[in-house]
């Protein structure tokens, strides 16, 4: 089991300057913000469950850029129908990462059902071109290295993480329209 914050640091270290990174509401956006704030990050500070759909749209609109979707098990479960849609639309530039701590940590670590349902198996059944389930840093580093190569469709990476809240972690301090504008400039930038 990896601390989610450590997993996010490893992911953000592997992200290249041209990549778009989307993070879901709650602690995940805060941890991405604290780890590596950059204009090509879109912090979805509300709208739980909407992130993967927005990521699919961006991947289809910007085929020349890798799009990383970083969400939690609660967010993925809320919009489970988006997974077969992503798999059938088959964008080869989408890397869908579920940081699965089996809990709604941002609201007090109430248990989710992902301890009883394997989201990686759901991804396989949906038809993602690549599905990995990792539980340690070595595994995570390996799948992030794999993600550098282009394959015929979207990737799903399930990372089993622990519940390890960062005390007093700040909220994303940028105004919503500022997040939008700097992200839009990066979407439209060639490099």
């Amino acid at each position, binding site marked *: 089991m990896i601390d989610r914050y450590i997993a996010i640091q490893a992911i953000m270290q592997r992200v290249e300057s041209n990549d778009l990174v989307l993070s879901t509401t709650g602690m995940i956006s805060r941890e991405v913000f604290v780890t590596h704030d950059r204009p090509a990050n879109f912090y979805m500070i509300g709208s739980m469950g909407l992130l993967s*759909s927005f990521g699919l749209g961006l991947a289809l609109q910007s085929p020349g850029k890798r799009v990383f979707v970083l969400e939690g098990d609660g967010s993925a479960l809320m919009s489970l129908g988006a997974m077969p*849609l992503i798999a059938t639309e088959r964008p080869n530039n989408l890397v869908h990462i579920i940081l699965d701590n089996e809990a709604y940590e941002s609201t007090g670590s109430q248990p989710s059902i992902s301890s009883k349902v394997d989201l990686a198996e759901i991804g396989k059944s949906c038809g993602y071109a690549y599905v990995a389930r990792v539980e340690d840093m070595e595994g995570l580093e390996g799948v992030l290295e794999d993600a550098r190569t282009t394959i015929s469709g979207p990737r799903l990476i399930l990372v089993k993480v622990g519940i390890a809240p960062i005390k007093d972690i700040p909220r994303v301090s940028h105004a919503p*329209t500022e997040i939008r504008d700097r992200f839009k400039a990066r979407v439209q930038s060639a490099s």
Partner: protein
Amino acid sequence: MDSKAFWEILKSRGITFVAGVPDSTFGDAYNYMVDDPEITYVPAVREDVALGIASAAYFSGGLGGVMMQNSGIGNIVNPLTSFSLMYKIPVLLIVGWRGFGGPPNDAPEHWIMGVKTPEILDLLGVPSVVMEPESLESDLDRLLAKIKQDSVPGALLVRSGMIS
């Protein structure tokens, strides 16, 4: 209005990236759109998913479209308030207005939303126009100007029988 004329008007305003959930209001216009090589259509599984997908067009400098039935407005209330309206990300909602006029029109499941549709959009701060075939171009241009000026989503409400 026939399907071709409807889509030519929308395409000429830059609506070429559309996601949605079908509604019988649109009839052949749905099939026309899916077959049109100038339109990219994503068959979303829910209206909120469609909104998330279509909103991406704004970031490429365009305007996305969401085709949906008004019953799906319930599924997009949170995405509208904590995504579209909060970040000010415009999108055009093309909404089949089932239950227009209330009972006894249409099926019972459409009666309440049929009456409440304009009020709900007003309450949320989403501008809307009702499609009238003879004035679609000017009404749509007015709506699109409002969408652009305020950087908000806007809705084109389409009643049954308007498009063939």
